[in-house]
């Protein structure tokens, strides 16, 4: 089992752990962290794809493939921006309501049904 294979298996395991966390965990910051773990899994797989041992010629002499490295850098930038936006929104939500979970995770009516009830009075007075 060579290095690229070990990296790939770890990457897939990270992806699975992150996916499980994003779906199951209720706290929003934990969801964001789980999504970051998922992202790390994907990036690790890309790095494993770049490993020189995947080419057929002498692995010790060839350089890593640069294209997946560029993909990983782009992906990291996107992930950081999205994480920042998510955390900013969570802060806003917490400041407004004091809560850090989605209504459906608290057992309250799910999103669509909640909106189908009439809006509260503050709208009517506007």
């Amino acid at each position, binding site marked *: 089992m060579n290095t690229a294979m070990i990296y790939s298996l770890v990457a897939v395991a990270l992806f699975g752990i992150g996916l499980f966390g994003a779906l199951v965990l209720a706290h*929003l910051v934990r969801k964001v962290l789980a999504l970051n773990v998922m992202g790390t899994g994907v990036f690790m797989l890309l790095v494993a794809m770049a490993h020189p041992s995947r080419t057929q010629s002498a692995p010790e002499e060839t350089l890593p493939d640069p294209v997946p490295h560029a993909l990983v850098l*782009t992906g990291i930038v*996107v992930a950081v921006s999205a994480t920042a*936006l998510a955390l900013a929104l969570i802060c806003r*939500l917490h400041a407004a309501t004091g809560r850090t979970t989605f209504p459906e995770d608290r057992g309250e009516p799910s999103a*669509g049904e*909640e*909106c189908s009830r*009439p809006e509260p009075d503050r*709208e009517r007075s506007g």
Partner: protein
Amino acid sequence: MNHWGVGMIALPLAFGLVAYLSGRRMAGLLAVASPLATAAMLLGLGRQVIQQGPWRYAVGGWGSPLGIELHADGLAMVMLIATTVVASAVALYAPGYFRAAAHSKSDETSTSFWPLFFLLWASLNALFLSADVFNLYVTLELLTLASVGLIALAGTTEAITAALRYLIVGLLGSLLYLMGVSLLYGAFGVLDLATLGERLAADPSGQMAAAMMVAGLLIKAALFPLHFWLPPAHANAPAPVSALLSALVVKGAFYMVVRLWLEVFPTATLSPGGKLLGLLGAGAIVWGSIQAFRAERLKLLVAYSTVAQLGYLFLMFPLASLAEGQRMALAGAVCIAVSHALPRRPSFWRPARFRTRQGTTVSTG
């Protein structure tokens, strides 16, 4: 001149930068100038595609695989035309909307709207002009980030919750898609759509990649049963934003599924998946329509009807597996996509007008 397509991406970005730097002062000027300028670029590109065939362009002079290539063919042109029409209409409508709503909402909604709107427009154009799977991912993420910002504009708790839900679910979908891209690159060594289509055989890595990519995109395209983020997002966003989301953003993800389906993956991999997508589409039509009947707010009703219409779009995929049906299935789906996009603007505007006069959008009927 060969750069019309680049102009279609760069111009909205430039307008967005001007909007960000100048605040609300230039909103009216931008609202009129941007449709004209982008339409000019679109006409130039359209003329070039009609006269010289599909347009391919290496950004910065660097070709694939290390560089990014732009590609405009018939399908891309149709989506670009729909985007330009809808976005122009929203740009012309938005100043009036924000002026009318200014007495009940905070002023910041209008200031933040314009940069995000132009970013959304630019990323949509970039998505429809992309030629490789990774650039599709980047533009899809840009689209998601801009949409999330726009949904959260209203500032209410429901709007922020809806925006956050869309962001988290959207990130999940994007990461699934990116995993599929990694698998494709690892197995076949290329990212370009056309080259992948040539190299792909019906082997397990291709199947796995197809499954992950389509699953991720289905979340973004709000196909039943993954549509749960759509109704609250559309109902709680300002009217111009709802129009954009409903008409264009979900179509971006659908366009990506179409590209992957038709150009990249071989039919043998896709036929069982096509039947599943058709089944889910049928479910979307039924469920979306039932929920639309039950809805008590006008905007929520329109949002659920969007869910139903998206189900019609996905009926294309089982039909596309038949060899002779493919062209017609694609033509049909594109017709539905465009004809759904165009009336979406007014169907969100009527509730907005209704609301500002009466104070609420609860329907009494």
